[in-house]
């Protein structure tokens, strides 16, 4: 019983914390434009993040050190700097999107322009990071994110022709009115939404924050192998809602406000309220994670003390970086840049930069100096290598596709 509760809680937190602004926007946009023809990408992305997170969580639990910390040591400062530069830039874009997402979610209830709410959202994100213990902030927003299960309920309530849905999912095809290049571009966007680097930085640093050891590997694996795939179901449900309601109406998703509209039409006001709560929790939780990830990345690269597991005065530079990241994201958000466009760019560029973070983690996870006897087994290495090749192909294709398709226009 003593071990079951943390595992159960960890799984629930992983499910609820899986979705962020990128998943909300990407899955809804793809569903409203391509129907179910890109659902397979979500599955591929979920398997990828499971592999990515398992490697980094195991590295943290066995070595007691977070990923960024080890990457610099193992691969040298230049490789670490490349990793840091790419990751921090994308992380910053993501933070802008998440804080804007929080503001938009509240605006849909308060009927206030979201720009007025961005400073409030930014302040609350900082305040929660400053005051709330790590495990509490992780669990509270992870569990609140379970409200997004309302999208699954909505799909059932809509009552689609399941035979047709299954056929579309299992027989993906480029819609007639779309080009194959746009199809590939949105596949990369979905893939990037599922495999954002900050999730891994947060997951591995969080493992150190919570003092995980080899005894916690069961919890780590449960979170990753059970929680993340179930979280992926939420992404598919969001896509399905858009495919079943928005696509037939000819409504393309260019605003976060459109994402819960199918839930409202299917379930009503209660469903809408739950969906908005879920969207708030998902974006707020992701804002916490990306803000902390900014601090983790910089502090770990430069060897500064980091984390919420020490007194703030002992990790002053870490907290300063977190604060600067939040303020910077707030300023960019206040400039009125379309948060959906920022989200799209962040997830696509995430896909382009993934090899820079993934390869170092794979190398460290196979290094007995850090892992002892717990290096990757043959099966994990085989899967991880397949994904490495896939990530390189995606990374090479991303920018050309972005140019050719005019960012999916």
């Amino acid at each position, binding site marked *: 019983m003593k071990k079951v509760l943390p595992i159960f809680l960890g799984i629930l937190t992983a499910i609820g914390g899986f979705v962020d602004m990128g998943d909300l926007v990407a899955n809804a946009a793809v569903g409203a434009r391509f129907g179910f023809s890109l659902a397979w990408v979500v599955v591929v992305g979920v398997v990828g993040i499971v592999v990515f997170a398992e490697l980094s969580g195991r590295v943290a639990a066995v070595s007691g050190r977070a990923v960024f910390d080890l990457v610099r040591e193992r691969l040298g400062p230049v490789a670490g700097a490349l990793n840091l530069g790419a990751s921090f830039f994308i992380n910053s874009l993501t933070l802008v999107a998440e804080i804007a997402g929080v503001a938009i979610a509240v605006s849909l209830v308060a009927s206030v322009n979201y720009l007025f709410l961005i400073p409030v959202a930014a302040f609350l994100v900082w305040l929660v990071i400053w005051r709330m213990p790590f495990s509490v902030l992780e669990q509270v927003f992870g569990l609140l994110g379970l409200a997004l299960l309302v999208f699954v309920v909505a799909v059932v309530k809509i009552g689609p022709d399941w035979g047709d849905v299954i056929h579309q999912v299992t027989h993906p095809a480029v819609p007639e009115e779309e080009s194959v290049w746009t199809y590939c571009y949105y596949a990369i966007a979905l893939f990037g939404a599922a495999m954002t680097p900050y999730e891994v930085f947060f997951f591995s640093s969080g493992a150190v924050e919570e003092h995980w050891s080899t005894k916690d590997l069961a919890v780590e694996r449960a979170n990753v192998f059970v929680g993340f795939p179930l979280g992926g179901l939420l992404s598919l449900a969001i896509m399905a809602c858009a495919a079943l309601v928005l696509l037939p109406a000819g409504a393309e998703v260019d*605003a976060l406000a459109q994402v819960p*509209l199918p839930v409202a039409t299917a379930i009503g*006001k209660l469903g809408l309220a739950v969906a908005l709560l879920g969207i708030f929790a998902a974006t707020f939780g992701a804002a916490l994670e990306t803000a902390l990830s900014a601090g983790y990345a910089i502090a770990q690269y430069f060897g500064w003390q980091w984390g919420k597991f020490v007194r703030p005065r002992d990790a002053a530079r870490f907290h300063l970086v977190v604060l600067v990241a939040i303020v910077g994201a707030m300023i960019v958000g206040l400039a009125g840049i379309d948060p959906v466009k920022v989200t799209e760019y962040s997830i696509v560029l995430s896909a382009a930069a993934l090899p820079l973070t993934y390869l170092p983690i794979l190398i460290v996870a196979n290094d007995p100096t850090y892992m002892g006897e717990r290096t990757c087994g043959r099966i994990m290495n085989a899967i991880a290598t397949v994904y490495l090749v896939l990530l390189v192909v995606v990374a090479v294709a991303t920018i050309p596709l972005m140019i050719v398709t005019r960012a999916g226009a």
Partner: protein
Amino acid sequence: MVLVSVVAVLVLGCVQNPAAPARTADAYLAALDKTVGAATSSVATTRLAAEALVAERATFPYVGETVSGAEDELGSTVATFASIQPPDDGSVDLRADALAVLDAAQEHVSAVRIIVRNGSTDGLDALIDALSADADALAALVPA
């Protein structure tokens, strides 16, 4: 820094110049096609939100914000299309027809926003029908 600069240049290069001139009739038609798609999306979003409100399946604040967003998007779409120089007389006529339909759609979306922001649903049924007609009129602008 170099990597970020390269990415920024590449990304900025992806931003479509919204008011780029259409040098041929086909190019103008392609611009109209994109405009119709975007406008249809705004009209559809407004219609779905209004229907949800009338059916008491959505709240006034939510529908108000959603329709306001759709209205802004539609306004931007129409302004962009209106700024594109038609390349020949046929395109000029096409522009006039398209703008008539787009203006009507804008009028109806704005009317929905006004009613909803006033906390009422009176008149929404008629506007929902009008929005459906707008969607049909938009579809008719572009050859199948």
